[in-house]
């Protein structure tokens, strides 16, 4: 298998790249939803992100990538208990995935051949401490969506079926992508994504040509291309690590809290998740940019991604809700 296209070589799409980096800085933000046309680099960015993320330490044979032997679930049969460094898991959830594959199920083979009752962990277990990527998330079947909502909220996967009673941690960053022409997402699921970005094919001819040029260079000479871009990817990775260390020290003035609340009231977003995500993302952004204190610029920059998907949908608003958020941000923050 070839190395994925380097993250820093993706042309344009600043908002999408930034949103993905921010979830790496603070996984608590709660995921990114990328909506846009086909062939705009959605999948490329997610796969590139996998290569960019700092590795994690985990127990070698643990099915849920637990960091300590004590944290491994009791049903897991641990082979090697060595701590190993492995890349942050980025797990693909294919559209046709069944409930059994997602949450895990009775290991039928072992039940049939050896008569043992064993649990076969599913995709949620593998995605623990990492990313769960759903391409075409809007086409996902409803019952799987319900399931994901439940687990994403509780951070724990509970399986109670066929005589099994299993639970294990399942904390992951949900990354969804899709094409809005093929169907809308339910508001409940939308709300669970921390950030949402819209990507469009670049209209600028020069930018399009640059995309093709880089991709072509990557395809014809992967090694040379990686050599050019690897240092930049490493730079990004170092900055992510630095930002992670800085994050707890970011100061949040009360005035900014008021701004957050006023912004959300003006936009009429439901619930308080909007404020919370806005604040969290703004702090992550501040850490990423190396600031010590949260400022209005941070709010302003991140508000469209954090809030645009939490508004009531207006089917005739062709400019998209991002423009609405920007307008109101300008009004509130002056």
């Amino acid at each position, binding site marked *: 298998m070839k190395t994925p296209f380097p993250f820093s070589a993706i042309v344009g799409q600043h908002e999408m790249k930034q949103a993905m980096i921010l979830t790496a800085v603070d996984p608590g933000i709660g995921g990114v939803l990328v909506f846009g046309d086909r062939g705009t680099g959605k999948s490329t960015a997610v796969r590139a992100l996998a290569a960019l993320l700092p590795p994690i330490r985990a127990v070698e044979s643990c099915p849920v990538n637990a960091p300590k032997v004590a944290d491994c679930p009791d049903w897991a049969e641990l082979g090697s208990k060595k701590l190993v460094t492995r890349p942050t898991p980025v797990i693909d959830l*294919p559209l046709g*995935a069944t409930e059994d594959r997602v949450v895990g199920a009775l290991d039928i083979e072992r039940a049939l*051949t050896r008569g043992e009752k064993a649990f076969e962990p599913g995709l949620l277990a593998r995605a623990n401490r990492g990313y769960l990527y759903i391409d075409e998330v809007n086409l996902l079947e409803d019952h799987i969506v319900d399931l994901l909502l439940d687990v994403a909220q509780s951070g724990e996967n509970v399986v109670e079926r066929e005589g099994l009673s299993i639970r294990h941690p399942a904390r992951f960053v949900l990354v969804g992508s899709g094409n809005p022409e093929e169907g809308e997402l339910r508001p409940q699921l939308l709300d669970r994504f921390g950030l949402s970005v819209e990507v469009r094919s670049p209209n600028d001819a020069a930018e*399009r040509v640059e995309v093709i*040029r880089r991709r072509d260079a990557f395809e014809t000479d992967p090694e040379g291309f990686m050599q050019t871009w690897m240092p930049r990817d490493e730079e990004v990775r170092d900055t992510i690590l630095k930002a992670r260390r800085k994050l707890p020290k970011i100061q949040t003035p009360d005035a900014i809290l008021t701004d957050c609340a006023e912004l959300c009231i003006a936009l009429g977003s439901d619930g308080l998740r909007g404020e919370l995500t806005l604040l969290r993302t703004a702090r992550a952004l501040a850490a990423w940019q190396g600031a010590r204190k949260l400022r209005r610029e941070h709010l302003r920059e991140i508000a469209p991604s954090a809030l645009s998907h939490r508004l009531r949908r207006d089917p*005739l608003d062709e400019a998209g809700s991002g423009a609405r958020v920007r307008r109101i941000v300008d009004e509130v923050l002056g």
Partner: protein
Amino acid sequence: MSVPSDSWQRAALGLSLLLFDPRHLGGAHIRMRAGPARDRVLASIRPMNLRRIHPGITDEQLFGGIDLAQTLEAGQVVENSGFFQSKVNALLTMAERCPAGLAARLAQQLDRDAGHCILALDEGAEPDETLPAALAERLPLFISPDGRMPADWGLVPAGTDTREPASVTASPEVGETLTLLAAHFGIDSLRVPLAALRVARVHAGFNGRAEVTAADVEVAAALVFPHRATRLPEEPGDTSEPPPPPPPDQDEDTGGDQGETSTLPDGDILVDAVRALLPADLLAGLVPAGTAARSGGAGAGKKRKGNRRGRPLPSRPGRLDGTSRIDLVATLRAAAPWQPLRRKAQPDQSGLLIRPADIRLKRYEEQSDRLLIFTVDASGSAAMSRLNEAKGAVEMLLAQAYAARDHVALIAFRGTGAELLLPPTRSLVQTKRRLASLPGGGGTPLAAGLEQAATLATQSRARGLTPTVVILTDGRANVALDGTPDRATAAQDADRFADVLRAEGVSALVIDMSARPQEALRELSARLGAPYLALPRADAQRLSGAVSAALGG
């Protein structure tokens, strides 16, 4: 060498390139009905060593897993290797039936760049019966020859001194030309120009050239772009959009000292070349942006077959693949008659002897309820003409709906807005009462009515109903969405909501209740992709008959 204008020759060229280097190209979408012609086409690419896969293939077969049949037989775990564990040239038969999940997984395999090649053999007869877009987009070539196959049809022989496509160089202008050309035809996806660039490389290598030339670019554009075009390029002189800048003449400074071969064709010539190859029905297929194909028939609620819930169907033999539930009783029943025989064959085994062939899987069929959303024009003009007849017709339909256990909802629009008079219900009495008290008068805010209908349709679909919108009106919208009496805006708003309804895939029916059939309503129904019924001087009986005929119910 120029691009052959005959579709069969183009197909031959495409297939020859595919045969020459399947790995570099990644695949093709072949759309042909079964027949001797297709057999010959497939025979021509036999050296590719195609392995067939079908839309029902399970994950275990694709990616490897435990071989259940062998495991049960041997009493120990036997694993089989998956289809995609080594480089493979796959032929996906009946590709038009490929479910979205499989398409996503195949697309993933192609994205991994692991050297697979996928040929999707699409037998779809109807335009909307085709390969899922996620996969179609990743297959560079589209091969769909029409007309009679020439008797002497055959592949194009490769050049004498072929080269590895990966070693073929392409000047930056090649990528630029192809990108701009794709943009010209409204192809937004950037995967497409990349695919074209790959085709150009393969074509150059095929002809033994070390660098991509004008001819390669032309061939690539002809093989990759036409079927993906979403709009016709502007005519020269049409200045609504600035024409893309012509590729700058920098051939010299890129070190392309290949003489006259490295000059690229002028953008306009390429545009014309591709335009000549655009499918004839392109214009017919150009639906307004953002409108997806409407889902078919509008009979009763859609039937959905599944293995999770709904009314049980007889169970089927099958293999356990994690997507279905075992029907234990049927499995035991299937195994029962064989017990004595199997016991004789394996006397040392105790207990029931169950073979994989005995396994029966549960299947269910779910029928979602239909919801008829009556969107009735109660404006002054309608009240004058035939509001009472419409009411009578709706009442008769209600009786039928009651018999079919359909749900009914009633929306009336008049004056400055629309009102949901009756949320989805099965109560006939209530509906009749609301209908009888429906007052008339005011303007025709068609957009507001459509908005209400669209909202209700989306909501009800989320609740598992299959909505059908029946629009009864007498003509032109004259009140805009914000309540202002402005004909132009009103018509625009109505059109936009019609697009929303169509994009949502809601089936609809437009009933013209004016004295004279209105052209505007015919346009509306075309926009909705809905049947249109003009009922000059129809009585309630005929109206109801026409509606039930149109709804197939």
